[in-house]
């Protein structure tokens, strides 16, 4: 559905992405993980068409995205970035309605879609609120609703949703509800690529794990097929271990924090 082929991106003089190739299929939820500076957000920017690659290309359902008209591309993929700020006093409903910019819809059709996506993202009670008075987490959910509104008038099976750390400002309850929503959207065969910092959240929902390090894709696998602790320990350059917990299907990854490893930082001056 959406694939990259030997994708390389230079920002300034730095090569941020190095020959990244993968193919995310219809209805798959792929999580991109990696340490800070690995190139995760750059990958999302390149896949959304913001950054022009110096080599390789991004294909959306067989079409190179750089050659798609802006309006056509906007009807086939939506993006939620980390920047959720809005400098003017818009109502949350107006921000969500901006997702409908690429479409020509009547007022009642727009109202129906806003109503639906605000239910899905649990922001119905915020619709009449000024976006500037919302918390970071609430704004993040409003932006997710805006991205869903952008896709809703089309066919979800032919569209892609790109998310850059959609859980970063959410509380635990909202995180789990958002993960459940992503699962629900995946069941409707929407293709989702999501950058996540929370490894356990990524493991709990991902069909595919794309592991980036220093701009290169070092693993592209189903989460359960990997030797997770070893791969992730090498990726994040810190000892990690896998813990099983009761009825939970997916493993939990936690840092190995031995007394010895903590000692140097806890030492006090004599």
């Amino acid at each position, binding site marked *: 559905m959406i694939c990259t082929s030997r994708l390389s991106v230079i920002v300034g003089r730095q090569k941020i992405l190095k020959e990244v190739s993968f193919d995310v299929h219809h209805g798959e939820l792929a999580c991109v993980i990696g340490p800070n500076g690995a190139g995760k957000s750059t990958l999302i920017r390149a896949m959304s068409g913001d950054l022009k690659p110096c080599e390789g290309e991004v294909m959306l359902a067989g079409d190179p995205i750089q050659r798609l008209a802006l309006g056509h591309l906007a009807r086939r993929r939506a993006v939620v970035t980390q920047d959720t700020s809005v400098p003017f006093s818009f109502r949350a409903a107006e921000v969500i309605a901006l997702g409908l910019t690429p479409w020509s819809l009547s007022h009642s059709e727009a109202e129906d879609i*806003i109503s639906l996506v605000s239910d899905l993202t649990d922001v119905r009670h915020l619709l009449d609120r000024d976006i500037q008075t919302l918390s970071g987490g609430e704004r993040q959910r409003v932006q997710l609703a805006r991205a869903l509104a952008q896709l809703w008038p089309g066919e979800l099976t032919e569209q892609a949703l790109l998310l850059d750390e959609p859980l970063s400002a959410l509380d635990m309850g909202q995180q789990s509800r958002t993960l459940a929503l992503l699962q629900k959207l995946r069941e409707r065969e929407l293709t989702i690529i999501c950058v996540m910092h929370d490894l356990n959240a990524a493991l709990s929902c991902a069909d595919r794990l794309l592991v980036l390090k220093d701009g290169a894709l070092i693993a592209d696998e189903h989460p359960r097929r990997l030797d997770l602790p070893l791969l992730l320990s090498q990726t994040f350059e810190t000892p990690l271990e896998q813990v099983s917990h009761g009825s939970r299907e997916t493993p939990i990854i936690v840092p190995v924090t031995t007394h010895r490893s903590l000692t140097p930082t806890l030492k006090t001056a004599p």
Partner: protein
Amino acid sequence: MNVVGVRGRTGQPTTGLLLERLSINRRWSLLGLGMLACVSILFACSTGALEIEPSRALSILWGKISGALTGSLPPDAAILLGIRLPRVLFAVIAGAGLGVAGAVLQGLFRNPLADPGLIGVSSGAAAGAVITLFFMPFLTAHQGGLGADWVTALGALAGGLISVLLVYKLSTKGGYTSTVNMLLFGIAINTVAGSLIGVFIYSADEARLRSITLWMMGSLASANWRTLFITAGLMTACLFGLLRIAKPLNAFTLGEQQALHLGVPVSQLKRRVIIWATLAVASSVAFSGLIGFIGLVVPHLVRLLAGSDHRVVLPGSALMGASLLVLADAMARITVAPAELPIGLVTSILGAPFLIFLLLKRRGSVPS
């Protein structure tokens, strides 16, 4: 279209035509602002050295429109139609242009404190006008019959356009125009223009110094039917160009990247905003001199009244800008009658406290 049977987690009913309600609010707000503009025009037509009753002013205007008023005009009709009306209508056009230009630039820079001066148009126009006024004796001797006002206006127009062109060219690399760079180069060009103005003011004699100072403080006294028609022609094109970009400008408030994701041709939008806003401001100030604060304050007032949707902010800023400049000009004419206050002084005296209020309000609303 996708249909899902998902209800809210809390099972709340639909909020009930929220967009429809906002749309109705926008229409009522615009109607109110339109009425404010009409009342302001009527007030300004009635007020001045010679008081004309509003009903009399209306009957003179109707007489002129219907063709009933012919032959030699009574004194009040001659003053209204020959002097006051073109001046009031010029204030309408200039105020509308400054208001809309301020609103689109605040939208483009995603900064509610942006104003047309940021991209160098005002300081460029001032530098152009000052240079022209400095060389006026030479220019009036060699320019083929144009009056001093026209020569100054052309100088201001050229200065404004050249400085924005410089800012735009310097901020564009590889076909991409950075709004942050525009702000920085705008500051640099403003400084260069300020220095140029300083050099010419320093070198000017008494007479030139007075004409330069008066131009810098703004006045609509030179407005007549001829200047009005030319400015109206330019401004109609500008308003037509600017009012059409309300919807993409709404998307742009989410950020440049997000606007691109929503299918907005961002580079084209920036170009259109810069071209039309520059032309609107330059043609407004060319005949009237510098008029501050309208471009900054008016969009705020409209947002407070009708929300931030540019589909109401842009036409609303045109109507509110027109009303405020008409009222400011009326105040400039009557406060120290029979003399006149420079209109730039009036807008600054009223606008500066409002700017302080905005900054204090912003300080209160932004978490530290």
